[in-house]
């Protein structure tokens, strides 16, 4: 049983991500096929939305993969193929959405968080170092005596 579980675990380790592209879908020309794969990985499957059409088993994803390959075989550039799909399904199918009015908030969100956060942190650190940087008050006579005691006996009074 232990061995079986261990074997299963090892099998999981060697199993890489598997694309849904079937052999009969692939183009004979390896260069075109590589371009098709790259484009498919950038396009979202509209049925199961968090997968690319390269990963998805949905029938509609298979159709879109076929269209990508058809357009490439017809001589379209990568951008033209993307535009063909975006024309039908919108920017939503792009897993990397372009920067436009609708996505400006999405793209600027890291800056919007980092800049005020960084400023706040800088302000805080400066204030703290200023407070801590001033010379501490000198020891009182009693404190000095206590310190001498500790140093002599190695023991707190």
């Amino acid at each position: 049983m232990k061995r079986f579980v261990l074997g299963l675990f090892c099998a999981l380790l060697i199993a890489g991500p598997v694309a849904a592209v079937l052999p009969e879908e692939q183009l004979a020309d390896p260069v075109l096929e590589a371009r098709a794969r790259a484009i498919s990985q950038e396009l979202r499957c509209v049925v199961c939305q968090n997968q690319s059409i390269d990963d998805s088993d949905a029938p509609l994803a298979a159709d879109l993969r076929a269209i990508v390959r058809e357009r490439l075989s017809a001589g379209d550039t990568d951008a033209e193929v993307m535009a063909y799909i975006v024309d039908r399904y919108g920017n939503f199918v792009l897993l990397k959405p372009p920067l436009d009015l609708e996505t400006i908030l999405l793209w600027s969100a890291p800056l919007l968080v980092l800049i005020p956060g960084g400023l706040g942190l800088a302000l805080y650190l400066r204030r703290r170092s200023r407070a801590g940087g001033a010379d501490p008050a000198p020891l009182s006579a009693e404190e000095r005596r206590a310190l001498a005691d500790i140093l002599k006996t190695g023991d707190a009074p």
Partner: protein
Amino acid sequence: MRRLAFIVPIVLFLMVAAALGLGLRRDPSILPSMLIDRPIPTFDLPGLTPEDTVGLASSDFTGKPVLLNVFASWCVACVIEHPMLLRLQSQGVTIHGLDWKDEPADGAAWLAQRGNPYTLIGSDPRGRTGIDFGVTGAPETFVIDGHGRVRYRHVGPITPEVWTETLQPMLARLDNET
């Protein structure tokens, strides 16, 4: 200053929470149609059986506003929607059908069993016309005006509410336009 440092994060948090809360109420599977107010894609599809001499073509969408309903024999929700389509047909609404990603014979048998609410039907076994329309699944219904432009897209079955609240007023308005 002290108090501001306290209030600002709370206000920010509430704003983000409100935005995310609104986002939860939206159905992410419904994508906006790219075709709204644009002409329908060009197509010319055959009918379901070899005896059907007329199919459905983009040139059929001129004159008066109609509905284009995307259906298929494999589509479960279409079975639910079907009685509603028959009712609309009996009220005089023109509905054209697109049998999407379906064997035409299966689509014909499906309609023979349940009744045919469609005026014209196009068979799209490879699904390309549906993809040109940006269809993501069946059933889907497009409102197409008398100039052959898409004015609205409904994803999912037409329920009585969708009909009375959205589609019917829209068709009435488009009827007045033409």
